[in-house]
């Protein structure tokens, strides 16, 4: 027989060779003492061929809910699967615990381990089908945008210019401080890095050309689009996603209003309008950052300005602004698309927002690579 006394609880465990086992509990069976009692019972009882288990609780002076759960567990036979179990000495009003959950209930209700999903081929098949369905939905979405666009712009009753202005302010005007800081620092970085390399060839003056070309053709549009994807694309997805969860989109439908012209078009128009403007501003701030570095390196301002003016042509500016308008469409459309596809549940809006940002960034980079290739081939 094993006897252990710990924290006001004395536990005797006796397992006889004929399969008869007896557990005697004395003292206080509470949340604290249950743990040590459990460890002892788990060590002594399982693995033995117990046929009859008697749990004697007549000596208990106190038993809380955790203690009752231990007695319930023992009474169900979870610790001694093949034994007949009896608990003796429990107060009649506490015996109700044994009706709260029976072994049959426990076996029925206990969650079963998740069934492993299918083979690699099956998973691939599901994925391909999903991609096909997504592509179909995206084409439908794109078609709905194109179909709604003329009426939304030219039909005075269907235009939602007030909403467009609100989004322009949120996505554009309110983004000016962060674009300023980011572009100025970007100008510093490009200027410092290129100055170090160009100094080796005695060509530090061409830092101005580097800044201008890099900012106008690539970094200005790209960094502005990345910032918009993180700031405004995510906000579009979260805003429309929350509207869907709150059934506001259903309310629109029952009024006979289509969510594409009502919600999506104003955001796309705002994106197309605001992205080139912010890109222009980003280029300006980046160049100012570079000019500050060049002034620090000892170059005269007229000389710097001359280099800047001679380094880009109209087609460079055209390429930069046209790609920024495309980036604006991508950020707005992807944000709205993921917002409209938001599922139910508390994590759904967060998931849509994450997907909107990741998809936008991916498509922006793909589009930029496409623009670079086209521009190279045309030249």
């Amino acid at each position, binding site marked *: 027989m094993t006897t252990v006394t710990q924290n006001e609880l004395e536990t005797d465990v006796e397992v006889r060779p004929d399969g008869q086992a007896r557990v005697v509990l004395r003292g206080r069976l509470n*949340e*604290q003492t*249950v*743990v040590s009692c*459990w460890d002892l019972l*788990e060590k002594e009882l399982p693995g033995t061929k117990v046929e009859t288990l008697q749990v004697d609780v007549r000596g208990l002076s106190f038993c*809380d*809910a*955790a203690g009752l*759960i*231990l007695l*319930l*567990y023992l009474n*169900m036979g*979870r610790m001694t699967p093949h034994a007949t179990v009896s608990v003796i000495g429990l107060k009649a009003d506490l015996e*109700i*615990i044994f009706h*709260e*959950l029976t072994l049959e*209930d*426990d076996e*029925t*209700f*206990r*969650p*079963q381990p998740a069934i492993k999903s299918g083979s690699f081929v099956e998973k691939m098949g599901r994925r391909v089908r999903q991609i096909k369905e997504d592509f179909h939905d995206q084409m439908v979405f794109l078609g709905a945008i194109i179909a709604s666009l003329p009426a939304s712009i030219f039909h005075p009753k269907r235009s939602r210019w007030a909403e467009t202005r609100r989004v322009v302010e949120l996505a554009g005007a309110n983004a000016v401080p962060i674009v300023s800081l980011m572009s100025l620092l970007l100008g510093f970085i490009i200027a410092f890095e290129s100055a170090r390399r160009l100094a080796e060839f005695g060509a530090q003056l061409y830092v101005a050309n580097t800044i201008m070309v890099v900012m106008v053709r690539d970094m200005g549009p790209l960094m502005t689009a990345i910032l918009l994807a993180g700031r405004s694309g995510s906000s579009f997805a979260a805003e429309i996603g929350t509207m869907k969860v709150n059934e506001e989109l259903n309310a629109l439908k029952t009024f006979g209003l289509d969510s594409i012209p009502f919600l999506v078009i104003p955001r796309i128009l705002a994106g197309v309008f605001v992205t080139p403007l912010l890109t222009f501003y980003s280029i300006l701030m980046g160049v100012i950052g570079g000019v500050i570095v060049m002034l620090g390196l000892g170059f005269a301002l007229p000389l710097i300005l001359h280099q800047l003016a001679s380094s880009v042509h109209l087609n460079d500016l055209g390429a930069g602004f046209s790609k920024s308008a495309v980036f604006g469409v991508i950020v707005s459309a992807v944000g709205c698309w993921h917002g409209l596809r938001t599922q*139910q*549940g*508390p*994590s759904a809006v967060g998931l849509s927002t994450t997907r909107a940002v990741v998809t936008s960034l991916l498509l922006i980079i793909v589009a930029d690579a496409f623009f670079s290739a086209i521009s190279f081939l045309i030249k």
Partner: protein
Amino acid sequence: MNAPTDIAISVKDLTVGYGDTVILQNVNFQVRRGEVFVILGASGSGKSTLLKAMIGLYPPLSGDVWIEGGNLVAAQGKERLALLRKFGVMYQSGALFGSITVLENVRLPLDEFTDLPDPLKEVAALARLKLVGLGAAADKMPAELSGGMQKRAAIARAMALDPRILFLDEPSAGLDPITSAGIDLLITDLAHHFGFTFVIVSHELPSIYAIADRVVMLGPGTKGIIAEGKPDELRDGAADPRVRRFFNRQPDPGHSVKPS
């Protein structure tokens, strides 16, 4: 100072507000052990605010809330945690955690606040779920449950740490009459067979008649209690006309759309 032993909750001179706006002023009442106590009143009368002040979510401007002999308003640190374990709360929406199963929702407080072995936690959580009639829904996600089932699961979670007091915010709101009656039956069973003390915010008259041992009624614009007693007594004999109108479902004068 401890509250008398047959009193589970004692609200003393409680004043609650936001900034300069006072919602409730000098509210006083007591809840006895084992009774179903209902806070009722019209929309906007401050029922939910009172409940949230009682469970420590809104710090009051002044006054005390004594729960099982401890002052929740003044308690800090471990003393406050010990007091919080004396009661469970069911929020109006259920407030189940949507990313985990119903069983995991009920197990969560046991995982966080007890050192019980895992098999015992699982049995304890299953027993609570069976008690509210949701054993078969243990491995479902909350979004898969109906409104009534979510409220039952929330009651099971509120009971996870075996508190003696349960606060329920609008348990019948938005439910059909049969589901609502099922929740009422669960409340009365838990109170009468298991000895739980209930503090319930509600304005559903059928539920109030079915479950309430005693009620306090908050009046719109009065910032306090306008009636206290048994529902039947208040319906038939309340001195305040606003109380009689509430219990007899009579609209305030001048609320008709018909031209006068």
